């Protein structure tokens, strides 16, 4: 444009008598040339809306005003958002006019958005608008010290959600807290109906029968009330499958495969967690030495360290594996199961004893039968046979 202007100056100076229409045409050309640099406006009315779902926010906007030639084009929007204070922006590109996601409402949320005009529309390279920004802070009264502390939530055996907290640092004695929760599928947030209490103050909540609540954001808000001062709310977001603490395995079993190998078995804990969703940690103790091992199966084969160990024990704990959840808590350790001192011959005897008893029983039975039958056969049999039977009896009983 600067070049065009200097050219124009030169033109004016050297061609003093040139036609004004030519001059006008020249000016028009430079203006059109300047406006051929394509621009697009940012989206309008960009705002963050809180529908009162404890952290699920709607980021929405309206399409920008565009030139006639671009009215048929599909516009895309580049949206960046983050919690205030975070270093990293999360980025998405969408053609919709709304984006919904879960946020941590303990901090503010900020977002910025711009329009993208695709290459097909501009017959050249992609054109981006400038950014338009907005932010959102939940309007909350109360000072930080009134908020609950150390909020912990555990989803026991994928069945019962227990959340517990400690009261705020500085609160009045009449303060009591209430907990609300929401996940997609519920029409609105619900209040806890089964509080855990300490001195008649709510310090936790137990929730069960949470239908279709896993694999999606679960939002919690704990607020409070007091006659003396407002209480600041505390927010939590997580996914239930990532905070599961299963029950420990049951029915532990140790068997000998051969003189040096042992097989340890256990059954999957009862409950809704599928057996293939577990991973286990086993601790084996042979006399005074312990070692750890891990497996995804319900049994484990190990080689004994020494031939003459007196005691071999193990216990096991379970956790949800990475194929079903990102994270979780280990269960409590199971009861210890031991195999106490053995030597190969002894075990064989123990095995043989019942068989011996069985044979002895059979022989006794035979004796009785033969005794009963004796009167008849002796009548029909030859003298020799009789003697034989008689001698057979003697040796047996």
């Amino acid at each position: 444009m600067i070049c065009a202007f200097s050219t124009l100056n030169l033109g004016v100076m050297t061609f003093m008598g040139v036609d004004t229409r030519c001059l006008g045409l020249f000016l028009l050309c430079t203006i059109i040339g300047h406006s051929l640099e394509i621009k697009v406006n940012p989206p309008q009315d960009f705002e963050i809306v809180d529908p009162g779902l404890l952290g699920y926010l709607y980021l929405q906007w309206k399409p920008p005003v565009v030139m006639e030639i671009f009215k048929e084009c599909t516009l895309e929007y580049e949206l960046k958002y983050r919690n205030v204070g975070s270093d990293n922006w999360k980025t998405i590109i969408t053609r919709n006019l709304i984006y919904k996601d879960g946020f941590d409402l303990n901090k503010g949320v900020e977002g910025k958005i711009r329009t993208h005009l695709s290459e097909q529309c501009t017959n050249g390279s992609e054109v981006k608008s400038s950014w338009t920004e907005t932010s959102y802070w939940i309007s909350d009264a109360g000072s930080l010290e009134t908020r609950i502390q150390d909020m912990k939530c555990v989803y026991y055996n994928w069945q019962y959600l227990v959340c517990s907290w400690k009261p705020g640092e500085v609160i009045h004695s009449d303060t009591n807290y209430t907990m609300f929760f929401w996940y997609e599928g519920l029409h609105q947030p619900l209040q806890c109906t089964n509080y855990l209490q300490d001195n008649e103050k709510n310090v936790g909540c137990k929730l069960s029968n949470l239908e279709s609540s896993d694999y999606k954001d679960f939002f919690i808000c704990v607020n409070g009330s007091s006659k003396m001062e407002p209480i600041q709310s505390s927010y939590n977001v997580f996914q239930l499958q990532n905070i599961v603490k299963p029950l420990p395995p049951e029915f532990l079993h140790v068997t000998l495969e051969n003189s040096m190998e042992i097989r340890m078995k256990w059954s999957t804990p009862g409950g809704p967690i599928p057996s293939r969703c577990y991973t286990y940690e086993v601790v084996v103790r042979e006399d005074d030495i312990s070692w750890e091992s891990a497996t995804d199966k319900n049994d484990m084969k190990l080689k004994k360290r020494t031939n003459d160990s007196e005691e071999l024990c193990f216990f096991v704990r379970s956790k949800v594996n990475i194929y079903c959840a990102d994270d979780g808590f280990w269960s409590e350790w199971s009861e210890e199961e031991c195999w106490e001192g053995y030597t190969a011959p002894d075990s064989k005897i123990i095995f043989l004893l019942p068989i011996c008893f069985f044979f002895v029983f059979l022989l006794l039975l035979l004796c009785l039968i033969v005794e009963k039958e004796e009167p008849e056969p002796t009548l029909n049999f030859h003298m020799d046979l009789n003697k034989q039977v008689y001698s057979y009896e003697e040796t047996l009983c």
Partner: protein
Amino acid sequence: MERTLICLIVIFLGTVAHKTSPQGPDRLLIRLRHLIDSVEQLKIYVNDLDPELLPAPQDVKEHCERSAFACFQKAKLKSANTGNNKTIINDLVSQLKRRLPTTKVTRRQKKSIKCPSCDSYEKKTPQEFLERLKWLLQKMIHQHLS
């Protein structure tokens, strides 16, 4: 007559044995677990991936999991032009694109549900794309086992 009877009994026992024999390996479960392993591997090489944003389904509705997975498969996940580890990445990406084994349940579902098109999902960074893919796979495994 007796031979016919014996033949019939043998055939009958054969069919009963076939039905009561243990099920073959769960091919769908094996594949889904393998896919999670592949995604975890790709996350290690995320800096060598092309940074172009990809459609990544989230908040997938009930019964639309397979359709959402198909959207993940369609996405143009690839290694960066100047990136290292091209062979490993291409190998892992081709693992993701293999067709999933079907089950009786999924064959029934396919016909009845109307699921969002791939275009309607927002595009995200490759890092976010892989996280969301992993979450979808975990959900599918849990559903399959329940």
